């Protein structure tokens, strides 16, 4: 037997291949109905893909201190997966998810990522929430060439080929917020306040540079450890310095103490003297703080549950149907919901589940059905998205008072702000 392949055979193979491609293309064009592409063709790297199923991972903390924040993301991802399956799945394959618990413990995130990629061979992972958990899991994703969809707004300074950042990076969230405070509220003096870790520090660094570029003034900058609950001394300082804006990146449980003590100290948020602008209080946090304590608060993010567009109305209804009437949807929850949809679009564009293939198709993927409106993946793996300012009401929802006209370009390594 001659093992060499003759040119004629080559040609025949090419013809065969292109013949095979036709039904695949037809399947793509006609939606995902009954794709004929065989599992071995859409998956050349041994991922957990069969002729009718594909496995993905969900990796968030469902126990420990972060569970309260991450649960929304898990719910959104499950909802997206269920909706995609109801539409016929991805390349004709139903998505099966394997859920792992990161347990609010960063080494556990690394361990579970590895389990999902190496043992379960999942095609993609939707997960991580804190920067620390992402930093712990990131080397695992890069080493085993996995694909992570990360939902949280974060500090930037990172751009991994193995991660799609569906939340905003710091400049998208901050710059327009400060411009807005200056232009519509005439703010001149800012007081920066944050929890003590990488995200607030980087955010405040960018905020300070931008404030100074605009010719305005930072009158104070303070950090408190995670979980800190005594804000009386800083509230006194704020009273002394009389800023126009308190710009806060305090996270988690500290917020409950902060807003209650602010109220107790006689600073009424609705009077806007000073105005409080936050990057870190979403509808989810307000559940814990209590709407009456944050009435009048301004938040700068890309999504609010009250956004009036049709996509969001549908999303909200589906979310409440699946997870109960009382459930609320915060910024990160919406970003988590985008993950499975972006992945589906990239896989179908590539006609393959291979991570290297979707790495090529992901930049440029658009979603016109996103609850936040239209989003598009930038070549730097972050999303183009709008900046919005919400004004908190006593019932725990936000009125959207400002929306940027254009999509803001993601810029994880902002020149001049580092």
């Amino acid at each position: 037997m001659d093992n060499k392949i003759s040119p004629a055979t080559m040609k025949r193979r090419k013809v065969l291949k292109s013949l095979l491609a036709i039904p695949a293309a037809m399947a793509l064009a006609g939606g995902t109905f009954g794709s004929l592409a065989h599992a071995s063709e859409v998956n050349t790297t041994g991922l957990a893909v069969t002729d009718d199923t594909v496995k993905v991972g969900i990796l968030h903390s469902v126990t420990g201190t972060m569970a309260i924040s991450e649960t929304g993301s898990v719910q959104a991802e499950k909802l997206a997966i269920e909706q995609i399956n109801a539409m016929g799945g991805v390349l004709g394959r139903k998505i099966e998810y394997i859920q792992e618990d990161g347990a609010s413990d960063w080494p556990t995130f690394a361990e579970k990522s590895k389990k999902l990629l190496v043992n379960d061979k999942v095609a993609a992972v939707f997960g991580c929430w804190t920067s620390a958990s992402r930093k712990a899991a990131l080397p695992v994703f890069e080493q085993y060439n996995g694909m992570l969809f990360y939902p949280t707004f974060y500090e930037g300074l990172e751009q991994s080929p193995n991660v799609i950042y569906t939340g905003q990076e710091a400049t998208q969230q901050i710059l327009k917020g400060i411009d807005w405070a200056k232009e519509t509220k005439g703010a001149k003096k800012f007081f920066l306040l944050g929890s003590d870790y990488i995200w607030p520090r980087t955010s405040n660094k960018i905020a300070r540079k931008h404030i100074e570029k605009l010719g305005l003034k930072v009158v104070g900058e303070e950090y408190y450890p995670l979980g800190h609950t005594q804000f009386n001394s800083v509230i006194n300082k704020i009273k002394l310095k009389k800023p126009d804006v308190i710009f806060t990146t305090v996270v988690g449980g500290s917020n409950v103490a902060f807003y209650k003590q602010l109220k107790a100290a006689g600073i009424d948020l609705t009077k806007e003297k000073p105005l409080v602008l936050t990057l870190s209080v979403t509808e989810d946090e307000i559940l814990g703080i209590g709407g009456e304590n944050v009435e009048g608060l301004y938040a700068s993010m890309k999504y609010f549950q009250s956004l009036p567009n049709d996509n969001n109305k549908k999303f909200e209804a589906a979310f409440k149907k699946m997870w109960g009437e009382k459930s609320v949807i915060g910024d990160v929850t919406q970003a988590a919901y985008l993950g499975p949809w972006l992945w589906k679009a990239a896989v179908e564009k590539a006609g393959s589940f291979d991570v290297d293939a979707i790495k090529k198709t992901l930049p440029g993927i658009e979603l016109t059905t996103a609850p936040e409106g239209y989003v598009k993946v930038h070549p730097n793996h972050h999303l183009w998205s709008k900046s919005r300012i919400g004004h908190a009401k006593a019932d725990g929802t936000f009125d959207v008072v400002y929306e940027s006209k254009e999509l803001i370009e993601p810029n994880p390594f902002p020149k001049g702000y580092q």
Partner: protein
Amino acid sequence: MLQSKFKSLTPRNDVLSFVVLAVLLLVLLPLLFDIFRLNLIGKYLTFAFVAIGLVLSWGLGGILSLGQGIFFGIGGYAMAMFLKLEASTPENTAIQSTPGIPDFMDWNQLTALPWFWEPFHSFGFTLVAIIVLPAIFAYIIGAAMFKRRVGGVYFAIITQAIAAILTILIIGQQGYTGGVNGITDLRTLLGWDIRTDSAKYILYFVNAILLLAVLVAAQYIRKSKLGRLLVAMRDSEDRVRFSGYDVDNYKIFIFCIAGIFSSIGGAMFTLQVGFMSPSLIGIVPSIEMVIFAAVGGNLSIFGAVYGALIVNWAKTILSESYPEVWLFAMGALFIAVVLAFPKGLAGLYETYLQPKVDKLLDKKLKKDKAE
């Protein structure tokens, strides 16, 4: 004479336990599991170092430290600092405003490597630091407290406080330490890629052999005069003091030894997991380490290894199968073990299995003699 001394050091049962454990770690586990699971087992075993130290200081000496995470952290961070410097070459970090320093320093506007990072360019220094730093630290804590005759609950509380302080310090000084993220993205050890499967195999065996060596050392201490003195001190400190022994120094010594063991475990953790973070130092992980020793049996150095293995294994398996309720199952497991078998797994073995093993061995001995 010499032979009898040797015999007293190595009672038959301990030799048997040692051989069984060695076979398990070096032969059975590597054969049974793929490299992913084996790497996890390697991670669990790094906690066994801490648990063995706790058996010596707590089980034998009655010194309950709720801050062993401190020493685990010292070893882990020393190794992580060395690896991070090696990973932060100017070429790898060209995108930063100051290339050549670890990435988190750059994010925190540091423009030069802090002085206390400099020596960690040297691997030799790092190895020495992993042994010497925890010893110095333990000596200072021990001397400050035992010389003042602070013991028991107060000692436990103070060690716990120190663990909390260290965590807060590391998180607060993120420019120098990596903060709450820890030191991540470690790649090579002297040019050898520690992330590959073959490297993970080698690291597993290095780890297992180091653990066996630590067991031998612990056994030596346990059977020596020092070991017997520790037990005497635990049961009646004043009586030992009045017999003319310097109780404080013995306590300091054993606390230092426990610290060094933990530190070795920490260094091996960093090598096998590829990062180090403050979440392994604080109060919760420190208490968990005590639980490993308690489940294994706080009087048995072998029990400590099994305790660390089984508790961590259960943690992994339960959390994989029941991601939302596994913590309750873990809690139930601890309560059950402590209520039903206060002496831990080792106690269980001694009550039920050991008599049978003894009988078996005796029979064989008699048979041998008869022949």
